[in-house]
């Protein structure tokens, strides 16, 4: 029996049960129009709540069994690590990459045109359409490479930039109808 496995199983059980109860008692009653069984023009039919109710009930039962089993027998599995430092860096890298992707184009356009031409107008033309993707994508890729290798270097940065550039050209050059992120919905 492993202690961490036991705790992880308990966490899985509690999360499953808590989610299921929340869904059954709050989310489904407030956010579904018809019940498990619905009477419509004297026709008895299955309502929209049937699938979520049965699946949440299944989750509650499975979670309860996992929890009870974990309390009574412990766990023989060794769970995978959840490294908070890694998750922190991962989250930071992804947020930084996506934020740069979203903001670079509009900010550079605002600076370059003095706010006269919005980025929305420029987003389909080079080099504007590449700015956000290249900077955000390079930062994201470089950050993750450096994180897993434990050593940031200029070579990795160059590699990340080249990879991002290749991806950008791969999607943009052959296909007129495809737009790189975030240009499609800015």
């Amino acid at each position, binding site marked *: 029996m492993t202690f961490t496995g036991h705790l992880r199983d308990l966490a899985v059980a509690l999360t499953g049960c808590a989610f299921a109860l929340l869904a059954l008692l709050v989310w489904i009653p407030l*956010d579904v129009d018809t019940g498990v069984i619905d009477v419509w023009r004297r026709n008895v039919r299955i309502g929209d709540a049937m699938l979520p109710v049965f699946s949440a009930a*299944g989750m509650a039962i499975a979670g309860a069994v996992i929890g009870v089993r974990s309390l009574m027998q412990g766990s023989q599995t060794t769970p995978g690590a959840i490294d908070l430092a*890694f998750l922190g860096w991962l989250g930071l890298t992804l947020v930084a990459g996506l934020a740069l992707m979203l903001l670079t184009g509009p900010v550079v356009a605002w600076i370059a045109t003095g706010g006269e031409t919005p980025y929305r107008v420029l987003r389909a033309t080079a080099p504007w359409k590449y700015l956000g993707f290249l900077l955000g994508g390079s930062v994201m890729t470089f950050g993750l490479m450096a994180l*897993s290798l434990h050593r940031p270097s200029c070579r990795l940065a160059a590699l990340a930039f080249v990879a991002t550039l290749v991806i950008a050209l791969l999607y943009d050059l052959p296909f007129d109808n495809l737009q790189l992120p975030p240009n499609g919905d800015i």
Partner: protein
Amino acid sequence: MGVFDYILAGIFEAFTANPALVLGPLVLSWPVILVVLGFFTGVLIGATPGLSGPFVMALALPILISIFGFTPDALLPVLGFLVGVMKGATLGGAVPAILFNTPGTPDAFMTTLDGHPMAKAGQGGKALRVAHFASVTGDTFSDIVLFVCAPFLAISIEAFLGLPEKAALMILSLSFVAVVVGKDTWKGLLSACFGLFVASIATGTDTYPRLSLGSDVLAPGLPTIAVVIGVLVVGEIFVSLQEMYLSKRARQAPAEAPTPGDSGLSLRERRKLLPFIGVSMGIGTVIGALPGIGTTLAAAMGYTAGRKMHRGTPAFGEGAPEGIAATEAANSAVSGANLIPALSLGIPGNVAAVFIILAADTIGGFNPGPGVFRFTADVVNPELVVAFALFTLMVVANLLNWLTGAWFMRLLGGLIRIPKQVLLPIVLLLTVTSVYVEGSAMSDVYILLGFGFLGYLMRVSGVPILPFVIAYILAGPMETAIRNAFEASGSDPWFLFSSPISLAFLALAAAIVLGAGWLRGTPSSDS
């Protein structure tokens, strides 16, 4: 139209209906080009440690849909590419397993046991030949079984099963997948039920999309491709990145590849391998036909069966070509058979089938299930033509595999040394871009990463992913089947228990869940 006419129409559809290049009487169609492209990409990806077929399927699906659009013409090129990848990736996994002792795909682990000792003894080329011969033989056999069994099974289901029985069959299949995938029955069930719940968000028949929290982003429904790719691929990338972050292996110098050496495989040697290939491809096909049981188990069972059959030297584990043949024939035989439940029942049995069903659902015009194999004489059934065209493309992929697979495997020996630490971040950016270009919405990217994090948490907690994905895909058809069966029964609350067949299916589902839980007791250790 008769059966023969449908087969001919399918072949014609695959080769000529969507031409890319016409040179007089010669027509090169998009589906054939995409099969070729998919096959070589699949071998390359399968041969790259850290990547696998589902990665490239996940990357390619949104791009292909964006390129070819949502028209019926898009269906065969997209399905052809996915089929090519599926076949190529299984083959490619053997290359690094043999040359570098690093399985390219999880099912190629057993191949390392005999493949790498052969490579170290200067017989790497021969080991690759054995792997190719066994793999392509197993794959071809499995495809033949698919071509025969899928229509037969579908016709039987249409003939003998009514609406309640079909609904009960779906419940049985889902229970089976939840129980057999992973090491813990109850975590599998938790995963499947969660998949059903997520699938119910912003769907249903009411005018208000249920469980959408009044959100404009959720109201149109969760983007299926982002959800599936997030849980399957992004979650795996996060876990792999963490492993590399925590491991010191990243700093070790890569192992030197032995020279391929002797690569000949005589007819006599091939004949000697046939009994091992025969047994293993039988095992692989049976396992592949059952939803949820993957190639890894098939490879392990094929290897074990081969070891029992083997006499003489070298022994299994010390460089026996029969060991490679037994493993590769078993894991390759899974790929065709895996499509039997997908095409005849609409139930995806593995990740490749998930992507094929996903492609069919997204593009439209082809709904895998018993209805596909309706041999209507007076009116043409277009879905049946597509099914036979798909079979034709599988034959094309097999021919390509027979003719060029061995050569391409040898060629890849020198090309697959890109470290995972560099590769995976690039794959993540590719995934993000692919999902974005399909929907042109940043919300799809956030959903992709959110479900990626969910996939990460599920993996590290031992909650299997496949039941979630299959339940998510199956939820819509299952709910529709249950609704229709209920209404057809005149709102009988016991509609699912009204016939002996549906009762038997449900009893079997309950027995599988309870029996597996009882047999397993607590989950086995990580080994």
